[in-house]
């Protein structure tokens, strides 16, 4: 198990690093899948088989598909699949500096903790049964809420997703219908300064 863990850990880190540095959407997606699978493996190695299965199904299955469809739906002109540069300017330097700072602080805190390391992480497997009992016991309401959440997401997604080319509603002051129109100033910010 330990070997599995460290191996998967390496893969996960590597895959994540690759995802955020790719220039092609598709390459990135491939590494994202790899990342999700690695996480699934890690979950398995940490004694959470139920979670691992979910991970593989939901992430590597469903969410990935969403990404793929979206990229396809972008109707990118040929050749735009690859970005010319993966980041366009040097504006990221400052953020990276701060990320570094934060990471440093966090790492110090994490490793300086007084939580005794005597309990090994992989104590034992928590089987799916137990998880199921929790889900339909203590967390029953939580599950209901999760479904509510999904429904809300669905409603929102549906609102944005339906008929991509829907014409703006008819009205006395409806904006121009052309989606290619230059980014209009929204009303109210009429540019008078």
């Amino acid at each position, binding site marked *: 198990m330990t070997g599995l863990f460290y191996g998967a850990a390496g893969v996960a880190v590597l895959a994540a690093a690759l995802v955020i540095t790719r220039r092609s959407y598709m390459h990135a997606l491939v590494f994202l899948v790899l990342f999700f699978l690695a996480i699934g493996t890690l979950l398995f190695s940490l004694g959470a088989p139920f979670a691992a299965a979910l991970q593989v199904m939901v992430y590597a299955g469903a969410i990935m598909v969403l990404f793929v469809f979206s990229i396809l739906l972008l109707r990118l002109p040929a050749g735009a699949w690859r970005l010319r540069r993966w980041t366009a300017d040097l504006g990221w330097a400052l953020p990276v500096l701060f*990320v570094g700072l*934060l990471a440093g*602080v966090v790492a110090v805190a994490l490793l300086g903790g007084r939580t005794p390391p005597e309990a090994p992480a992989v104590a034992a497997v928590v089987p799916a049964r137990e998880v199921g009992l929790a889900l339909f016991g203590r967390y029953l309401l939580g599950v209901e809420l999760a479904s509510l959440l999904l429904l809300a997401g669905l409603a929102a997604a549906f609102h944005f997703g339906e008929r991509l080319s829907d014409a703006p509603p008819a009205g006395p002051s409806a904006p121009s219908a052309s989606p290619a129109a230059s980014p209009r100033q929204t009303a109210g910010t009429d540019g008078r300064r």
Partner: protein
Amino acid sequence: MKALLLALPLLPALGFVVLALFGGSLSRRAVAALGCGVVAGAALLWTVLAVGYGVAPPPGEALRANLALWLAVGGVQAAFSFTLDPLSLVLSGVVTLVGFFIHLHAAETMRSEAGYSRFFAYFNLFITCMLVLVLADNLLLLFLGWEGVGLCSYLLIGFWYEKNENGRAATKAFLVTRLGDVGLLVGMLWLFAVCGTLDIAALNQVAPESLTAGTATMIALLIFLGAAGKSAQLPFQVWLPDAMAGPSPVSALIHAATMVTAGVYLLARLHPLFLLAPEVLGLVALLGGAGALLAALAAAAQRDLKRVLAYSTVSQLGLMFVALGVGAWRAAIFHLVVHAFFKALLFLAAGVVSDSLHHELNLLRMGGLRRRLPAAHLSFLAGAASLTALPLITAGFYSKDAILWGIWASSQGGLLLLGLALATSLITGWYSFRAYGLVFLGPAQREPHDEHDGVPVRLSLTVLSLGALASGLLSLPHLFGGSQWLETFLGRLLPGLPASSGALPSLTAEAAVTVGASLVALLGAGLGWWRYRAGRPATPPLSGLGEQLRRVLESGWGFDWVYARLFVRPFWGTARRLQPDPVEQGGDLAARLSLATARVVTSPETGGLRLLLLGLLIGALLGVSILLGR
């Protein structure tokens, strides 16, 4: 009696109110009748009161009458109540009688002026305030009159308000006296804080017990400041010469006869307090003497007739202060009375002269008016003689003699003071007859138009001339077989001289002083007459040092120059520099700072997504650091 006493100041007040409210719609004749009438009434009232007082002196020598409560709170009690005692009787007599004749005079000489009713309104108000001042039985009421006369002085100096110089002179007069009043007011506060009362009689009674020597000295000094301001004494004398910007009757009434003597009155009124502070009395005498001499010298160098008289007033008041300082209280008051007559006379005569010369006051452009202005000539001569104290025939001789004798005989006196007084006397004679000669003798320089010759002017000049010459009879000294009636009468209130030896004054010594003083006066007068007997002498103008000295003297020893640099300019400099208000600007600074900071904190408004995420990151960093910091 009490009702009459109350009516005494109220009558002129009535005149003021009527004139102030309806003066504009009254005819000049009615205005004059009203303005003079109320003062005449006051004079009559005074006469009745005086007779009554003489016939049946009230118990305790003081008749008190209460008009109304002014304020009573937390131990302070002040009422509109008046006291008639020998001192206030004499003073109010001077105010009403001399005041009446000056009113009368002004009724004619001011007739052609615009603002005739305004003039009489102010004049009546002045008489009211002056009467309140001398009759007041508590210090607060006295202060009311004190400031009131100052106000009238201000208004009347600036009577011809179109000219800015007049306004400036008026303001100067008011402010300089007000500086002195700071002393008076603080002195009053201190007195109240220590003695717990503002009633003059009570104060005079409790002062010796409740004041320590140091406190008494300080309070006396402060009050002397007030008196010096009002009476144009060193170092406050600068305002009086400028105050001549007002009409001549004003100078006569306010700046010669009455208001300027208020300081003398105040010191006499509070003599028990001053007796507790011999050092202050010494200072009073010294400053008075020095002021007298300096002012006399300055008077000798003036080219403006009225300024000569103004410096002369400062000088004569100085003599009175010397008298006060040495403890010759009665002599000071005696001289005050006599001075009121002759100085009013001089001013009125000067007014007649200047009126006939189109308001010309420059001595060097006058001359030879003896024949054209006979009334003015005779009056001026009488006044000048009295001022010079020509022996025997003038009242001034007797009153000044009393002062000199006081200086000689008092334990507080001394040779220095005597010397100052005699020197003053000498120069007084010189400048009096210099002025007389320049105006009336010699060849005529300009053709005057006709003298005022109405009854009012004639009457007032005549009466005042009589007063200037004969009022000495009021207190003829023993040497001349007199009874010193006035001084005796005042003696009911004011103490006598602090005698040096305790022995009675010997007639020989008295005679010696008298003779000496007479000689000095005669010498000065003679020299003056001799030099200016034919008008302006034909000597070449002074040059170099002499001219400079003359200029210094003419400017009144350059006090104005010094004060301008010491006080006036720094004051205005500060006031202007505070404009615009730096504190206000400082307050705005906070607002500006806020807006500038606002500019900074709104600057990320235009960023994109990355900036927003950066905000998140920074927040996380801050928050985590704080929580880890324990």
